[in-house]
């Protein structure tokens, strides 16, 4: 075993590789094209390109889109569903809603298991877990025989109210396994013992259909890495912001869906921590979209409500990320009534912005940045030449002429609308949680984040912007920073005043035993296990619950109730002390600590500001400004400079607008003060 820690983050287009050397504390980064048809290839290619000898690798982290892509394309092996008589269509009826409320031609996508592959069996449990109708064993066996004839081996068993009593589900599983020797059977209660059939069935079904595919992928990759000399466990990044080893990933493959989105948020949290910032917004802006995450009191916001596609909920804790259609390639246009619009349509990789000369003729944010010379005409050290004339022509025709603006004014208008849209999205994620964005710092990364970060921050009244050293590959670094983590939950429904504290303690103990068991299976040493209790509560009669932390001991519940009142007031501006509080669910987060990279801060030098590569005219606030263009590699720790300035590097361009002051901190981040705190203009 050696000193390297490697993270491979496979995205839709590129697979990023981040290599950390624990001895030297150096980080190296490389990129290879993704290989969607055989995702393992890109991982192997990335290892090769990074010149990594797997024998030297202590930990190998991997974020993958295998699960996400399989769910979107529906390319997974045939699976069947066995369910309570009368409830064959829970996953097709869903809750009936549509995401596009008004377009009668836009439908929600179909269920993961077709109706012909969904079967019923007589059985019924009531809300309290009492068996109303015992499982009809002969019918169950006959059904198993039928499934065998149909050559289905991947089966989900989802019975009504199984969160309250899973006996019938378990018995059905046994019968299926007896009759179909090579069957792989999942029950809904073992995946997610929570109320609401639609959410539980969907989560279990997604988990089931991904099983064979993810198992095979993980096994193949694990085998290949082992063959090549890696001796430890492969660590797979999951959407909850932790990782899992292959045996658990095979058991809970659905947790790998959205693994890609989590990495950027984790990186944002890491950078915030390094900078000593308790509250930060992560703005990960790429070519077609922007992912916004929130670090509040040092923790990422977590949600239980997410999905890969609308109508197919996956009810596992996931890092809350809001994705909006605003990226470098977002298209600007003047609509039928003469308003200037920006996104969500995007030029994508093909045809791309006009200035890429790949056939695009609709102006994008990238074109606008080029017109204003915020972006240089040579990108990636000259590997990409941008055509400013074409961009100018497109912006003039599409935006400038209809609105009576010069090309510069039109470009600036495009960017202001884009930045305001991103600011609105940040407002939505913060204010809906009762948080004021002005109390946050903005961490700007992704291919385009550093170009827009300062102006988005100004729009929001956010005083500080942090641009990490390698904005384009920051997400991959996030993969290096995760612990092993499992999230368990149980229903626990009772008025807080009537809870039997010992019974509650027993529930936590049982979950803790199960969680510790999982972690030991993953070879986590007992000293590295951290167990965190949580509890969800609501005012009696309310529908949504709020999760708060839960301590130990006799007083813990009382304290949690007080925390609940406070949190309700903070998030929603009111509390109701007279209204009884009801416990709804108990939660446990089990963490197996993984060695974290340590970074040595750079030492500030008082060397003078390096000379600019050159000076060019850049457009800000309605006029051209002579602006120094710096090479990021030349900027040493401790250097300070005022805007306007542009900092260029291989994977990003950082914009320091007039009035902003920039420094390079000890982690080699560019930190900008763009406004006074609370100065909202």
């Amino acid at each position: 075993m050696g000193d390297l820690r490697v993270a491979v983050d496979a995205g839709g287009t590129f697979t990023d590789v981040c290599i950390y050397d624990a001895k030297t504390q150096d980080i190296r980064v490389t990129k290879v094209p993704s290989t969607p048809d055989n995702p393992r290839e890109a991982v192997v290619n990335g290892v090769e390109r990074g010149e990594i000898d797997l024998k030297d690798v202590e930990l190998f982290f991997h974020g993958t889109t295998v699960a996400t892509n399989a769910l979107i394309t529906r390319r997974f092996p045939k699976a069947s569903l066995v369910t309570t008589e009368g409830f064959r269509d829970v996953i097709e009826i869903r809750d009936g809603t549509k995401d596009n409320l008004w377009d009668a031609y836009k439908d929600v996508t179909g269920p993961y298991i077709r109706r012909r592959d969904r079967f019923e069996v007589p059985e019924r449990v009531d809300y309290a877990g009492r068996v109303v109708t015992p499982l009809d064993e002969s019918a169950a066996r006959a059904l198993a025989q039928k499934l065998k004839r149909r050559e289905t081996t991947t089966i989900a068993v989802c019975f009504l109210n199984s969160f309250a009593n899973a006996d019938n589900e378990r018995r059905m599983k046994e019968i299926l396994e007896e009759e179909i020797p090579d069957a792989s059977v999942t029950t809904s209660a073992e995946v997610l013992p929570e109320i609401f059939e639609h959410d539980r069935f969907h989560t279990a079904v997604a988990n089931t259909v991904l099983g064979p595919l993810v198992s095979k992928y993980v096994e193949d990759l694990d085998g290949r890495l082992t063959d090549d000399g890696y001796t430890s466990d492969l660590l797979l990044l999951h959407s909850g912001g932790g990782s899992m080893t292959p045996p658990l990933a095979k058991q809970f493959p659905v947790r790998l869906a959205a693994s890609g989105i989590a990495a950027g948020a984790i990186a944002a949290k890491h950078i915030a921590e390094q900078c000593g910032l308790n509250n930060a917004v992560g703005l990960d802006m790429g070519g077609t979209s922007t992912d916004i995450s929130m670090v509040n009191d040092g923790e990422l916001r977590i949600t239980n409500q997410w999905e890969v596609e609308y109508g197919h909920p996956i009810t596992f804790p996931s890092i809350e990320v809001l994705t909006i259609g605003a990226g470098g390639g977002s298209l600007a246009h003047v609509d039928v009534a003469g308003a200037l619009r920006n996104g969500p349509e995007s030029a994508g990789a093909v045809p791309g912005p006009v200035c890429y000369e790949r056939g695009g003729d609709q102006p994008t944010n990238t074109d606008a940045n080029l017109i204003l010379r915020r972006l240089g005409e040579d990108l990636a050290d000259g590997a990409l030449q941008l055509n400013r004339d074409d961009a100018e022509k497109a912006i003039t025709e599409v935006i400038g002429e209809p609105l009576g603006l010069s090309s510069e004014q039109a470009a600036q208008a495009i960017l202001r609308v884009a930045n305001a849209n991103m600011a609105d999205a940040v407002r939505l994620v913060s204010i809906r949680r009762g948080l004021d964005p002005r109390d946050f710092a903005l961490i700007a990364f992704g291919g385009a984040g550093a170009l827009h970060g300062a102006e988005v921050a100004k729009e929001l009244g956010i005083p500080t912007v942090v641009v990490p050293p390698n904005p384009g590959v920051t997400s991959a670094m996030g993969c290096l920073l995760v612990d092993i983590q499992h999230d368990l939950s149980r229903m626990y429904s009772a008025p807080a005043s009537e809870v039997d504290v010992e019974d509650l303690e027993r529930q936590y103990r049982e979950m803790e035993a199960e969680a510790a068991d999982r972690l030991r299976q993953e070879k986590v040493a007992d000293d590295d296990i951290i167990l965190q209790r949580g509890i969800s509560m609501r005012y009696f009669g309310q529908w949504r619950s709020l999760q708060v932390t839960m301590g130990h001991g006799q007083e813990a519940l009382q304290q949690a109730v007080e925390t609940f009142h406070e949190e309700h007031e903070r998030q929603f501006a009111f509390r109701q002390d007279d209204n009884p509080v009801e416990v709804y669910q108990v939660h446990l987060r089990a963490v197996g600590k993984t060695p974290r990279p340590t970074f040595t801060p750079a030492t500030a030098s008082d060397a003078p500001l390096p000379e600019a590569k050159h000076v060019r005219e850049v457009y800000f606030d309605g006029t051209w400004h002579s602006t120094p263009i710096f090479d990021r590699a030349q900027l040493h720790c401790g250097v300070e400079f005022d805007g306007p300035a542009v900092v260029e590097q291989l994977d990003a361009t950082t914009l320091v607008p007039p009035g902003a002051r920039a420094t390079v901190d000890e982690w080699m981040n560019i930190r900008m003060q763009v406004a006074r705190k609370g100065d909202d203009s």
Partner: protein
Amino acid sequence: MAPRQDNTLDPVTFEVLKNAFATSVDLMSEQILRTCYSFVIYSRDFSSALCDAEGNTVMQGSADIAVHVGTLHFQCKAVIEEFEDDINPGDVFAVNDPYRGGTHLNDVSFIRPIFSEGEIIGFAQNKGHWADIGGNVPGSFDVNATTHFSEGLRITPVRVWHHGRFVHDVAQLLVSNTRAPDQAMGDLYAQSEATAVCEREVLRLVDKYSKDTVVKAMQETQDYVERTVLKSLEGLPHGEWETVDYIDFDPAVGEGLVPIRIKLTLDGQGIHYDLTGSAAAVATFLNSGYGTTHSAIYAGTKTFFPDVPLNSGFYRAVTAEIGDEGTVVNAGWPHAVTGFCSGPYEKVMNGIFELWSAIMPERAMACAFNLEYLLIGGNDERQREAPYFMWYDWMAGGWGGRRTKDGSSATSPVFGTGLAVQPVEGQERLNPVLTSRHQISIDSGGPGRYRGGCGVEKGGVLTDVDKSVMSYCCDRGRSVTWGVDGGLPSVPHGVWLNKGTSHERYLGATFSNVEVKAGDSFTRPSAGGGGFGDPLDRPTEEVLEDVIDEYVSVERAELDYGVVIIVNDPDVDDYDVDEDATQRTRESIRRQRHAWLDASPQEVAQQYRDGSIALHDVLRRYGVILDWGTGELFEKSTQQYRESLRQRSSSHWS
């Protein structure tokens, strides 16, 4: 592209403020969803709006329920009229009055003025459906109500916060008139607080952009929407289009469908509707006030302009003549209107779908299933105190077949596509009702070249109940969901009690306060969507796929589509199409089907009573309307329904 007018904001400021208004309203919706007490609100039966100083709507929430569209400005104006210059910072008003542009009594609006420099610049409004608002029946859906007095509490504009102080006595009066006062008080708080979120956001914009700019942007956002609609009409033909759809019956008149007539005119100046000639108000609660009729008109139209934001600019471009008070579409005081959502609302929306289908064939669609609510109220004997329970249930159903694809199955009603069906496990925890099935019903989609979406069947058993009654708010038990362009109808709505037992009863598609006891079972379907195009033109392989998935039965594949399926081994989905027999069957249907629509209704009714033909045949082949329980013939309804079938279906057959 339209030239911008003089005196306008610069394009960036305008776009930024327009989007910021949307965010400020959506934040209000986010908060209400997280803090509400009514499960109806939680299921997304609510809406939010920012109105200007005159009460005109500047922006509605992006995920608002369709049915509230175009009513929020009326409610805001009612508050302004009522209180005039006695509106103060820190005030919050409540209103639900359907005769002041409200929807029905359950929908309670909370309205907060937004002040800047001592002057009102706008109003923040949140409207949510309370689970109960008093009246004769639990859930306040009294089908047999003829006036609002038996429907529940009518709230004309009142103040519940005054200068920032809670007006406890008034709030207490409101909630004390409901069956669930604690819950209602919770919602009163939650909704009022939600309006403060919008106020805060708008004031932030004022700080940043100045009061004048924000006020101007409120007006320009409305102008923008009006301009967008007018521009979108360019290139569409001018002319007049007419249709008629029906409510099942008016008990005061007797058997016979109740017409709602809609005329659409496009003249290049806007979109104009005329509903005069619609029937007199009915002696049930299936009437509509002016607010909800306008809502149906706006929501129906918006379906064909899905990307246009909703505000008063839309209401300027779309005008309607709804005639004098006293009709089913403009009921007026004191007619009962709570059931508007199942009655005129659905008919106006679907009628508008049909009219626009002719103008924009690329968005054409047949009729969708009808909104339905089943309510059971009584005492829950599972608990010692036997508290009052309200099992209040609505279903997804099928939408109409479309120009290029089948209708959408098991989808929320056109009344609100964001209205979520409740999870059975949640319902069972709260109510002594055990659901025995909740699944797609076979053969429920109207046959067509493109099949209507499938409806759903839901049934249950009452377990530990006492003193319980059941009510049903629906329609289209007789005016059955229709097909277009040669497509056929789906199936009727209606509730069965103890179906399949010796004391089976068909209760129909609207009824109120039927006594039920422990052990009783009930079931009802939601209709599928109407078919689009001639079912005999549907490719046999598509019919076969439907048979494999059991959306269509082997029997009805032959009877409705003329496709003869050979069943080899259904356990492994092994079926074949008998192509020769199919060709013969299709020819035979083609020869006879016009004559079927002239068959003696009495004989058809008799065959149904004998059990020799199925309900599907009575409707789809013969166009005959019966009491589906007794088999009694409704002669006048049959005549009207056959006329509709001839127009919408048979006239399109080759």
